[in-house]
């Protein structure tokens, strides 16, 4: 039997991957993970031991993310004028950079709600039921957000420059 701490540590890479895709940038993503871990540790007594830890952690992250979005909506922030694309190039994949930028732009076009569903199912490979539980929405809503989100991504990625989806085998 693994300890709670170990179970949490094992999930860090996946929490970071999801946060990176969700926020589109390393720093806010890691801040989100950091906050998630802090909250998870302070609420460890709320975790039911026999339940899988991953959905539990993702639920915490989702709630923090939603709070953050709401907070940002209330306080307008200044956004840097120039965008530095190079900082986000993924390593280890020949097409990683191109795909990342295309996909990142496309993901940004989605609503927060669609983006979360598309990433939890597609990237994190969570089941529809788990996704519904994490986001606190009915399964039917997961399905409709998923198909609308994916359709939108497909349009954005094949429409803009024709590169995105065709480059990968």
């Amino acid at each position, binding site marked *: 039997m693994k300890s709670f*701490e170990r179970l949490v540590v094992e999930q860090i890479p996946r929490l970071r991957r999801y946060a990176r895709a969700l926020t589109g940038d390393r720093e806010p993503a890691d801040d989100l993970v950091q906050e998630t871990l802090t909250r998870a540790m302070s609420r460890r007594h709320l975790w039911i031991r026999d339940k899988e830890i991953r959905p539990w952690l993702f639920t915490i992250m989702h709630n923090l993310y939603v709070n953050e979005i709401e907070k940002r909506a209330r306080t307008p922030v200044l956004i840097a004028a120039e965008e530095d694309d190079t900082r986000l190039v993924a390593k*280890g994949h020949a097409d990683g950079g191109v795909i990342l930028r*295309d996909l990142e732009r496309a993901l940004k076009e989605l609503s927060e709600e669609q983006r979360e569903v598309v990433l939890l199912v*597609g990237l994190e490979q969570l089941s529809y039921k788990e996704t519904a539980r994490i986001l606190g929405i009915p399964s039917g809503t997961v399905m409709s957000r998923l198909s609308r989100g994916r359709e939108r991504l497909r349009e954005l990625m094949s429409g803009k420059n024709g590169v995105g989806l065709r480059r990968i085998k």
Partner: protein
Amino acid sequence: MSEKSKAISEDELQACVDARLEGPRHDRVAAAVASDPELAQRAEQLRRLTDAMHAAYDSVLDEPVPPEMLRTVINRGQAPFLRLAAVVAWMTIGGVIGGLIVSSTGPTTEVVAERPLPREAAYAHAVYVPEVRHPVEVGADERAHLNAWLSKRLAATVVAPDVREAGYQLVGGRLLPDAGRPAAQFMYEDAEGARITLYVRGHGETTRDTALRHAEDGNISVVYWLDGSLAYALAGSVERSRLETIAEDMYRALNP
């Protein structure tokens, strides 16, 4: 749209691509996709989208975990069983490791004792747990006295950890001989009257905390660890994982 693609809903197609369909439902959708070029193309696009996400973001999985994140989990957990060495081991298994973390590891220490601690604890457990009239010398109603008395005899701060949250009430404690030196036993009971005992004794030269260890003696499971100048062994006829959870609670209660 052909007849076949009409029979397959968008949700079913997605579920098929996401590998969320089973049995006849999966077979039906898979057959329709195989025989309908239009469906096949849509399925392929969905698949490519998922591939694109992995191509774009999977590299994050290989990035070293920032030490700050590990510290958040491990320091807050306050568990001695989670030395960095252990963490590095898990991360290595997962193929994720940060250079910074490796350099800060130290060896963990084995329990140093005259007689094996888990055995001693299991014996004491077996002897006193069935006791109906005199399970303990000093009851939980005299908790302060119990702690003070045992601390004095063991020449260390000995405290019965509070694990009511885990469902165990303190029954009380007693003083025991252990290779000619004083040791202590605290007894706890759950709502059904099932008992677990925490055996405490001083240990020699080493003051290093250790990982949580486990031993079996007959049907008695023992989880033990070192913490400062004391060695602890929690014994009970309960599942190992359950016992480990209680042991972690005890450690935390003793190291607030």
